[in-house]
């Protein structure tokens, strides 16, 4: 049954893919037939009582057919310019990297039982102090460290209110977001004025790792990525090992699932939660610093523009798991990359902006449990009082 469900998802994806370069069929019938077949698979699986694979296949079929038919109307030349797979993959990684850092940060915090909607503010803190530190010291490495330090500090303040004073965690996170927006904006205007941040010298930018200048597919996609993109892969692997394969990870998870029991066996709930929240601030700040000194090379007020919330969405969509969150970050990064590229096609530009909403729609569907429920850690959002 699962196989048929997966085949349906595959058919749905194929329906869209065939209409894009290099194949780029212009017959609307092709995506319609394949999408229809995917829907049939989904309906059949659903009829046999398997909700999750059935609904997934149905959704993939509808999306594949819809997007495919749209693509056949776009005109071959335009699509060929916009959909260059290697460039899209590189752009996807660029867009996904800040999300990956913040989502992994959120993973530590939420796995330990502390909701963190302050990811956005902590990211913004990292973005500002990254560029400030980098300009002041003349070194991107020190700038990155300063960003991580201030991100950790913002998280520490939040942790004190959320863990020690047991304020409502959503209210505390909202406060952190306001404060980060105000403080970074204030400092930015006060220090750099109307001229904005100065242009960065070579040593003040996080360098790209040049593997290849070639024109092959892999060289175009992975040949020149920023150092922090590669580090994010390492952080991801490390996170997986720490959270699921070490005693430390077991502690973090136990504190998030059942703090009373964890406390009874001698684990310090407070210390573990403090460490996890501060770590989440540091990782979010890395994502923010990547934006300011790795990618855009400048800072602007509110430059994260809700990326912290997309990271939160990625974490939830990825079901509070490192690989899942990374996959979701890639998917959301891809939808932004696609939106940017499609924005250049005349008839598509108005619809391209809708791709920006895709992460939120998918996450809404995920929490609603239409395609497999996303279930948070049991004790998330509940303060702990030691007795």
């Amino acid at each position, binding site marked *: 049954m699962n196989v048929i469900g997966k085949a349906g998802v595959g058919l749905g994806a194929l329906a869209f893919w065939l209409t894009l370069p290099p194949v780029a069929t212009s017959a609307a019938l092709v995506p319609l037939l394949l999408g229809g077949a995917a829907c049939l698979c989904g309906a059949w699986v659903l009829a046999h009582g398997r909700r999750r694979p059935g609904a997934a296949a149905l959704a993939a079929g509808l999306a594949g057919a819809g997007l495919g038919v749209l693509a056949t109307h776009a005109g071959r030349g335009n699509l060929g310019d916009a959909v260059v797979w290697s460039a899209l993959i590189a752009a996807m990684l660029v867009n996904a990297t800040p999300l990956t850092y913040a989502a992994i940060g959120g993973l530590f915090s939420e796995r330990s039982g502390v*909701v963190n*909607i302050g990811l956005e503010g902590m990211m913004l803190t990292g973005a500002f102090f990254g560029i400030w530190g980098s300009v002041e010291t003349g070194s991107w490495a020190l700038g990155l460290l300063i960003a991580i330090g201030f991100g950790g500090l913002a998280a520490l303040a939040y942790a004190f*209110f959320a863990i020690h*004073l*047991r*304020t*409502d965690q*959503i*209210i*505390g996170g*909202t*406060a*952190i*977001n*306001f*404060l*980060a*927006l*105000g*403080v970074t*904006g*204030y400092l930015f*205007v*006060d220090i750099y004025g*109307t001229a904005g941040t100065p242009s960065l010298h070579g040593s003040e930018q996080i360098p790209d790792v040049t593997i290849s200048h070639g024109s092959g597919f892999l060289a175009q996609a992975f040949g020149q990525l920023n150092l922090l993109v590669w580090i994010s892969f390492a952080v991801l692997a490390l996170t997986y090992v720490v959270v699921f394969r070490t005693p430390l990870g077991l502690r973090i998870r136990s504190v998030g699932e059942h*703090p*009373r029991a964890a406390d009874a066996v001698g684990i310090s709930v407070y210390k573990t939660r403090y460490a996890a929240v501060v770590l989440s601030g540091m990782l979010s700040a890395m994502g923010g610093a990547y934006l300011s000194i790795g990618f855009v090379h400048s800072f602007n*007020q509110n430059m994260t523009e*809700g990326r912290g*919330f*997309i990271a*939160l*969405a990625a974490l*939830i969509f990825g079901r509070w798991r490192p690989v899942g969150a990374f996959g979701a970050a890639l998917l959301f990064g891809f939808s932004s990359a696609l939106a940017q590229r499609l924005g250049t096609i005349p008839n598509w*530009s*108005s*619809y391209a*902006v*809708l791709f*920006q*909403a895709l*992460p*939120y*729609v998918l*996450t*809404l569907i995920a*929490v*609603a*449990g239409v395609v497999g*429920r996303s279930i*948070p850690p049991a004790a998330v959002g*509940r*303060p*702990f*009082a030691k*007795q």
Partner: protein
Amino acid sequence: MLEGEDAPTVAGRLALAQRAGGVAGPVLTAAFALLIGGLVVLATGANPLSTYRAIFDGSGLNWLFPWVSGSARSFAATNLQQTLLLTTALVLCGLAVSVGFRCGLFNIGGQGQYLVGSFVAIWIGSSFLRLNGPLHIVLAIVASTLAGAAYAGIAGLLKALTGAHEVISTIMLNWIAVWAGSWLVGQGGALQNGGSTPISNPVASSTHLHVFWGSPVLQGLDVGFFFALAGLVVYAVLLNRTTLGFELRAVGFNPEAARYAGMSVARTYVTTMAIAGAFAGLAGAIDVLGWEFQLGVTDIQTSEIGFIAIAVAVLGRNRALGVFFASLLFGALLTGTSTRNLDATVFRPDLASNLTLIIQGLVVLFVGADVLVLWLWNRRRRLRVAI
């Protein structure tokens, strides 16, 4: 109440704080936040007292002083109209957040509900041009209110049916509204003005709300202000004098007990969210018909009314009067620090607008920390016993 693993709900804790502190708590919080804001001003090298004085004058609140006369008085009146226009939207959105809190729901989605209301107002106001004025206005307001209710109802329905947390779903709905709106009024969008700028059609001039104080062309105060005042009365009566309000508060205090008493918790969640959305949707309609008249993509993406409303509800302790005064405070701060109204020789407006954000953040952080006060209080008592 604060001991034990079952952490008190937001509503329960706010009720506790109300019993403990009355009006003193919020007033002290606001004063403390303003004090810290003053220190920030001092650190920048400006005089905090004259800065606050300039912000106060910029907000037009000096109109209330009888000794302000002549041209200063008419200038103050213009400023106060601006402040009250913002207060109108903040009151209604603040009620949208408050009504959720009273039911134990954290409605972060005021922003999305407000936006959806304003889109519908734009749509109705710029089409159906053969309707006569008053009918057209009523239709636009009713439709926007219902649209806001339906949009928030999605979050309520998801919570009731699948248990999806309303914080997550309303955050997602906020961003979906932002991008959907960017598509609607953006290049080639359904509501876009025919030209090449990403801005919507203007609403028909027959649908403009009557301006009863100040100039109709210079954003004088429109009758929407009375809708906000009426909203406060409706809110107070609804919560304190009706069965629905009783059920709503009962669910907020303790959903289990409410269920035991035979109330439908799920239905109450949906109704409460719908009421919340109705308030926010109404705010959107009133802003559009009262002074905005058309919306641009940047207006949609930078609008923050729904987020400031969280600070309003928290500071106003979810009481009608509290919401009014908190809205007036934030409305005055926002107007008083705007580039147009703040005397730039006293303090730079671009810095001051960030100061407003910092003060908002501090208010939210410290109001949430009512537990800090209780903790200190208990500690003092314990010490006294020890002595």
